[in-house]
């Protein structure tokens, strides 16, 4: 177990080194994702600042908490962009073209290699933007988080990044079973846009069930913000950790079943 982890860490750094070598060939688009996503999050801040000029709170959240929400979403998105997004999105193409064969013959987990072979350091400045928004939010809200709350916040950000990864892999692993997942990923975009503009606290009834437990995009940024504000109970910590665990198991199951289903288009 320990040697397997150490091996994967070594492979991770090797993939990072190779990626840097490749990125230097396309210097112009190096910071592209940073500019695109930054514009999106800055506009989101402006939108909520505009709304808060007319109302004092939204579902019990003041402007500060909403800013922390946007910053946290931006932070999880930044981790997604830096670490695995550009790798995971290639899964459908690799399945369709048969180039997944190359990954299956290597002595490394195919999913691990695909996920981390396209690390994007150009999105690193997004972390700075995210922390700036979170810092601005904490100042505006007048919150002084305790070390325990900060730890819980960091814990939730990490597991929500895993959840985001799970959702991305699940949707793209469907390419093992159906011809095209292009339109399914459009649903992912719609869900992400919705969860990014509507915090989980605004969800009620059926929509809460849907976006908390079935398509759990609604909890990704909401729960860390509640952790930082000292809102979630111990039950909440277990509940949402359980949700992430269940989706991670589903991801592993779908990937494994998908590989059994894979016929290799090229041979």
């Amino acid at each position, binding site marked *: 177990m320990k040697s397997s982890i150490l091996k994967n860490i070594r492979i991770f750094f090797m993939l990072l080194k190779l990626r840097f070598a490749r990125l230097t060939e396309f210097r*112009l*688009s190096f910071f*592209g994702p940073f*500019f*695109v996503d930054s*514009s*999106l999050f800055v*506009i989101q801040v*402006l*939108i909520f600042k*505009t*709304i808060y*000029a*007319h*109302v004092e709170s*939204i*579902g019990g959240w003041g402007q500060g908490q909403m800013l922390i929400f946007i910053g946290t979403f931006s932070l999880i998105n930044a981790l997604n962009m830096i670490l695995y997004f550009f790798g995971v999105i290639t899964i459908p193409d690799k399945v369709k073209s048969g180039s997944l064969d190359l990954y299956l013959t290597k002595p490394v987990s195919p999913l691990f290699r695909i996920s981390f072979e396209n690390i994007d350091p150009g999105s690193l400045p997004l972390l700075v933007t995210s922390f700036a928004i979170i810092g601005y939010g904490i100042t505006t809200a007048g919150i002084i988080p305790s070390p325990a709350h900060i730890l819980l916040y960091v814990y939730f950000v990490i597991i929500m990044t895993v959840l985001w990864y799970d959702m991305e892999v699940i949707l793209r692993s469907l390419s093992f079973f159906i011809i095209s997942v292009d*339109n399914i990923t*459009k*649903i992912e*975009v*719609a*869900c992400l*846009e*919705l969860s990014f*503009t*509507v915090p989980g*606290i*605004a*969800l*009620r009834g059926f*929509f809460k069930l849907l976006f908390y437990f079935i398509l759990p995009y609604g909890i990704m940024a909401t729960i860390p913000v509640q952790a930082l504000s000292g809102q979630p109970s111990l039950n909440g910590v277990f509940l949402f950790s359980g949700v992430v665990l269940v989706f991670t198991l589903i991801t592993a199951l779908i990937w494994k079943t998908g590989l059994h289903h894979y016929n290799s288009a090229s041979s």
Partner: protein
Amino acid sequence: MNGCIPESPVMKKYLELIKINVKTQLIWRTDAFFSMISVCAKMLFAYLLWGIIFEGKETVAGFSYSMMISYYVLNSFFSSMDMSGSISYEMDDKIRNGSFSKYMIIPVLPQAYFLCQTIGKALFYVVFTFTASFIWIFIFKFDFIITANALHVVSAFTLLLLGYLFMQQFHYYLGLLTFKFKNIFLFLMIKDNIFSLISGAVIPLVLLPHEVISVFKFLPFYYISYLPTMILLGRNSEEVPQAFITMLLWILVLAVVNPATYKYYRTKFEGAGI
């Protein structure tokens, strides 16, 4: 065509192009379904977010809850009917891979071709988008608000048509910039983010500070879908004359700039990759 209007060969050519583009959309039927989902997501956003904002409140910035949801129904329909956004992405792709040369050799002006393509798509999508937008009136069971003043309705729809024409010119112009900058994909994505704010697609512009709105009124984007929506809600009708003048001026500017830009850059196009 219908026995009443004489059909010139030029008009016939472009009508055929529109027909072909409507038929082309039939191949991508599922795209229509998923574009409906995108419209539904916008409506759901409005319903959930504004539902919680209006809890315990009668009005926000002069909007009642019914008026706010009516705003999103109309605005999401009008915004979704603007199919011109894909023009610049398509041109960016085709100029880079060299296949844009096909538009240079066919006996149709490239801008007119893209206009026909946009109209063809819009005609195909209108039913789906209309259904996706207006079905919420029955699902949410709210009082849909729309003006009964015929003059305002005509003004709003005329402005909409001018707005769509402008957006087609605007996206064609952005596409032409690929000749100069080689790759404008990232710029287009940033433009989409900014446009969602300044066009009133995400929140009604009336919520913005007065000074910002005053600046926006000089830009054409204020009049594309935001003002027609507000007019149909029975508001801002006093802005109609200014809206027509501004839109016609912007359309005129691009009617001059676009052919000149195309003429300048087409000679520099190498068609690499053919």
